């Protein structure tokens, strides 16, 4: 479903990688590994279409990825949380869903916040939450996310052990439903998936 061919990435005057390719099918997880600065985030930004590759091509279901149809099937979680400090967790979830053109009811949003352990804090402005809690607000999106392709940049950062297990479960569930996921992480985590591919950038 997701194919990349012969990708080349140049940042400034440094070439981070060249001739990189992979193929990912339904239910598969792609683990991106590599040192800091090896181009993991750059590769993810290519996959979401924000960074045009220097060379090579990326295709989703055989089509180039610069279309609204592709973006409607894509869920991206960057290392920034993309939440507004002034809004409450509930407002953040609802606003993010509306802006991404997704259906999300108030009840679903409340349920998602309860699952990430923020029950009782729905009405507190996000600036009063801790780093880990802010991360949980960002991750709450994934609970009701039906889009097939998840691209996650360091999703486990700032989470405690219980939350890491919970998130691994959410990603496994997504893969078992036939979804795809590409993610980077420096932590060891157990994700039950039909097939896990690894790609090491160096």
């Amino acid at each position, binding site marked *: 479903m997701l194919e990349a061919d012969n990708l080349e990435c140049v940042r400034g005057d440094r070439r981070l990688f060249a001739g990189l390719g992979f193929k990912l099918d339904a239910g598969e997880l792609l683990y991106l590994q590599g040192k800091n600065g090896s181009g993991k985030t750059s590769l993810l930004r290519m996959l*979401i*279409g*924000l*960074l*045009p590759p220097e060379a090579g091509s990326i295709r989703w279901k055989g089509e180039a990825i610069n279309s*609204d*149809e592709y*973006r*409607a099937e*894509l869920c*991206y979680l*960057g*290392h*920034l*949380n*993309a*939440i*507004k*400090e*002034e*809004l409450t967790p509930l*407002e953040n979830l609802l*606003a*993010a869903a*509306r*802006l*991404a*053109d997704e259906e999300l009811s108030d009840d679903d949003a409340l349920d998602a916040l309860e699952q990430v352990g923020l029950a009782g804090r729905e009405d507190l*402005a996000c600036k009063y939450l801790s780093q880990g809690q802010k991360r949980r607000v960002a991750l709450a999106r994934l609970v009701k996310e039906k889009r097939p392709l998840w691209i996650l940049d360091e999703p486990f950062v700032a989470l405690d052990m219980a939350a890491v297990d919970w998130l691994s479960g959410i990603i496994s569930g997504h893969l078992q439903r036939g979804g795809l996921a590409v993610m980077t992480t420096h932590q060891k985590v157990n994700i039950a998936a039909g097939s896990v591919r690894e790609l090491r950038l160096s």
Partner: protein
Amino acid sequence: MLKIITAVISRDLKLAMRRQADIVSALFFFIIVVSLFPLGIGPEPDLLRKLAPGVLWVAALLATMLSLPRLFADDHRDGTLEQLAIAPHPLGLVVTGKVIAHWLVSGLPLALIAPVLGVQFDLSAEALVAITLSILIGTPALSGIGAIGAALTLGLRGGGVLISLLVLPLYIPVLIFGAGAVDATVTGLGGEGHLSLLAALTFASIGFAPWAAAAALKIALE
């Protein structure tokens, strides 16, 4: 299409309401700058009447400039801009929503307070109506053109000064027709011509500027 624009507007207005200091500071800047002129020039009604349109308009340009650097900077810093850029609709529509929200928060209050400030310059009733109308019609163009400057300077250090250098020259037509509308009304020529041209500038900049700003944002996000 309308759905995404209204979603952006309602989110930005909600954020602005939680952060009222921004709105209030731009509005007070406008009030104070305009009020300094009668104090500095002294009680000469003829001179003040002559200066009023220019002073009000220049102050409106500067007050609009104040809030421009934050138009995209906040969304850029917390990662929301990335999410907006990969949402399944054109980024130009998102920017259109942000421009409209920016006008509601920064341009509209200026138009509402302008007649009160105009009294300090001993303006006649019809001149007050003309200055209010011209600011009301002209300020959306300021937000639209300003969005291009804000997008081009996104992520640059000292972007605030750079925006002024980029955007203020582009504001000149709006300034000329805006202040001209009041002069024409006072001298009995009728301000309709100027106001129509101002409306044309506004429609053009609300229609086209967001797409130029969206292109600049995509480059900033690379």
